[in-house]
């Protein structure tokens, strides 16, 4: 997944998939390339709105909240 400074090329996606051990047929690879910009945008939206001083990660449960 790209960070805010980079755009991932199809070749780089192929490399990442190999590292993940996942082989895709050409149709699924094209579909992934189509979907990734949307997913990257979501990742950026999460990253951009959270900072070092915010709550630490924790296992979520409503009991803890309430």
């Amino acid at each position: 997944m790209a960070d805010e400074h980079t755009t991932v090329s199809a070749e780089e996606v192929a490399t990442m998939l190999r590292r993940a051990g996942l082989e895709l047929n050409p149709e699924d690879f094209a579909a992934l390339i189509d979907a990734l910009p949307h997913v990257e945008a979501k990742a950026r939206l999460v990253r951009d709105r959270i900072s070092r001083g915010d709550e630490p990660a924790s296992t979520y449960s409503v009991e803890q909240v309430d």
Partner: protein
Amino acid sequence: MGTDLHLLTISEASRLIAARELSPVELTRAFLDRMEAADPVLHCYLTCTAAAALAAAQRAEEEIAAGAYRGAMHGIPYAVKDNIDCAGIRTTGNSRLLVDNVPKADAAVIEKLEAAGAILLGKLSCDELAHGGPSDDLPWPAPRNPWDTSRIPGGSSSGSAAAVAGGLAMCALGTDTGGSVRSPAGYCGVVGLKATYGRVSRRGIIPNSFSLDHCGPMTWTVADAAMMLGAVAGFDAGDPSSADVPVADFAAALSGDIRGLRIGVVRHFYEDDLPASPAVRANMEVALATLAGLGAELEDVRMRPLDEYAACKMMIQMPELYAVFEEDLKARPESFGEVFRYRVTPGALVRGVDYVQAQRKRRLLADEYRDLMGRYDALVTSGIYGPAPTTQRFERKGKFTKPSITVAFSVTGGPAVSICNGFTDSGLPFAMQVAGKAFDEATVLRVADAYERATPWRARRPAVA
């Protein structure tokens, strides 16, 4: 009894059964007949357990005749989404991957409904593994919307919503990770309740996202949802997310009186964040006026934009879902449908740090929600952006590009119910959500029930079959 037993609600049927004026066997037969007539059109069921249902109904009838009435769900026919394990019954998630999967044990919710004496009619269709969306490459044809069979029922609990709306089950269970109970409930004009995260055990349910999965009732009325929730709620040590919180008498909370309740209206979800159709917006104004007329104190409130909840949900859900099916996606990708593969594969590339940041973000959003709910008894917002789309208009990319209007309450974990709040000129349901404080399903249901009682929408049924 008359010929329309399949139109009875749980409230009505349970009164008759308790008084021994209605036979559970007769009631079960009515639903099996209805299935035979309408399911070839609606495609709600993947598996019908007719023989076992009739045997269970016979047992219920004998128990009740012997004075051993167990309560409101005794003798009530129900069906469940096919991602919920039932011992000895094929449980597939509508995926070729699991087409021969026969669990040895019941899910916790099935154990509870069996203990309550309810009658299982069968397993209901769904989007593949509660995530895929309708597509032609799944083992069974996609369910149709009973109000207009050229339209989708929504998903992922598509069969559950269509079955309840079409009178093919008195009630059903669905699962909801980002809105999969509430969205199809909205499109099909039924009640869909996502209780608080941890309220209903997920043990024995095929996982989608451990952090976000819920299981909940889908019924014709709010009172029925309260009864069914009462039967399935409660602590279960077998689900690590299960909350050890007392279970209220949800049905007893339905007083019909909401005078003085403070209700926040989350208008920006459907007016600004992803503007709903003019008809939805106009209809919401009428619904809000009804709530005000019942004596509730309404005030506009702001939450974060829907996009923020949707982004948080996606960055948690995608890697969790991918993790569940990684081994199979590598070894046998052809076992999954094209839409599921499209939606799950990006999960392989989500960075660990993005997943962690999303979990941190979820904590912040949940804390904000808790603070907001310190000022209100309930929130209301639309349940849909527009009426159910036609089958041709389904977009696989929509999962990535359009935030679901249900997602905020998935991420924050609070209870939320979708109810019918009217119909378009062409007879398709509108829907409204009522949400509330963690573990205060009673107030959410009280508001929804008061609205339902004050409006005529439950008198209208689809004309299918």
